């Protein structure tokens, strides 16, 4: 059994929004990667951005400052 870790999972309205988010993350060195959206979340897009929960506080401000669009944010153990 894989060990579960806590992540902040950001959902999106569309794939376009997800890819735009990813592009900004790469530019600003925000950690994480795109994953297939976990079943716990309902969103407009099949992709979600997963950030390790312990790294999220350090990039939350950046996501706000850049006005990066996403639908919702949820803490999950994956």
């Amino acid at each position: 059994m894989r060990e579960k870790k806590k992540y902040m999972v950001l959902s999106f309205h569309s794939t376009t929004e997800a890819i735009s988010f990813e592009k900004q993350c790469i530019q600003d060195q925000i950690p994480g990667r795109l994953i297939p959206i976990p079943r716990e979340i309902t969103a407009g897009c099949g992709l979600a951005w997963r950030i390790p929960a312990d790294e999220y506080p350090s990039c939350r401000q950046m996501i706000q400052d850049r006005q990066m669009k996403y639908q919702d944010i949820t803490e999950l153990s994956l």
Partner: protein
Amino acid sequence: MIYLDSSATSFLKPPQVAHAVCQAFQNMGNAGRGAHAATLGASRMLYDTREKLAGLFNIADPARICFTCNATESLNIAVHGLICGGDHVITTVCEHNSVLRPLYAKEQEGASLSILPADEKGRIIYERLEDLRREDTKAVVITHASNLTGNVTDLLKISALTRRYGLLLIVDASQTAGSIPIDVEEMGIDVLCFTGHKGLMGPQGTGGIYVRKGLSPRPLKVGGSGVHSFDKMHPVDMPTALEAGTLNGHGIAGLNAAIDFINETGVGAIHEKEDALARRFIKGMADIPQVILYGDLEADLRAPIVSLNIGDVDSAFVSDILWEDYEICVRAGAHCAPLMHHALGTVGQGAVRFSFSYFNTEDEVDTAIRAIREIAEE
């Protein structure tokens, strides 16, 4: 072979377009259908292409651009998706059937249509626009350039009226996107319909529609979206709303490479060269007896299209000689522009259309001039 039919399709393309399509065939999955490398690569390529198109047309939000198969599909989305049975629409005699036929179909559903006339040179009579507007006018659907005369529409004159009365301005940019600058903000364009395989130099089967924020056309197609699979309704978020089913990812990869070439070369430089070739051809026609040229040839801004006839000779016959004896590719006939042929008096004869590409040469133009001279002197 001398290809002078670029208004039909950009047969002459930068080599990186074919290379990008081949690369996509070998590497690309289905965009928006998962999160593995092949599908993410496709999604990233689509997004990158949206961004490049947004840059080209000064569109603030790339998500307002949806990919389609061609300008015809885009125009059908615009007309069927935004115009209702009781609406009045203004269009022009310069239009291609890709504008006219969807509008005629709306007429069958109860919409009414007014058609802005043109003068003997095919120039839109802008002064008549205000007279045609009514209380129930919903939109002006108009080409940015005639595919028959090469005359370019002054969209600022049109948008002065559409802005004043709150009408939608729906533009067919089939003959201009990529080769004549387009700025949706400055020009007041609400919906821009374009193809990928003409001025944008991409593969056939690519195209797109820009829909400004606040407008939500009813989609022509609904179906697979990769998301919300248990909903009965297709998602409403742009661009998913108008992109049901798998997109032509391989073609769009080619379009992406073509836009890179256009950006590196510059739309201005592309226009300048194509315009110089067209004007060289026009100049070469000047002293050939019996040649009748159509369109506003003195206009400062023109699409690189020159249509002509030799006396009353059938345009199909002339184009056939051009191919058989000179290996010159041109288009004869009606060019899907019936109202413009009525305006020019060329319904029976059609016209021989020469259209020039950035990749044509002065030598090719001179060969075409010699060919027309010889045919006219027969």
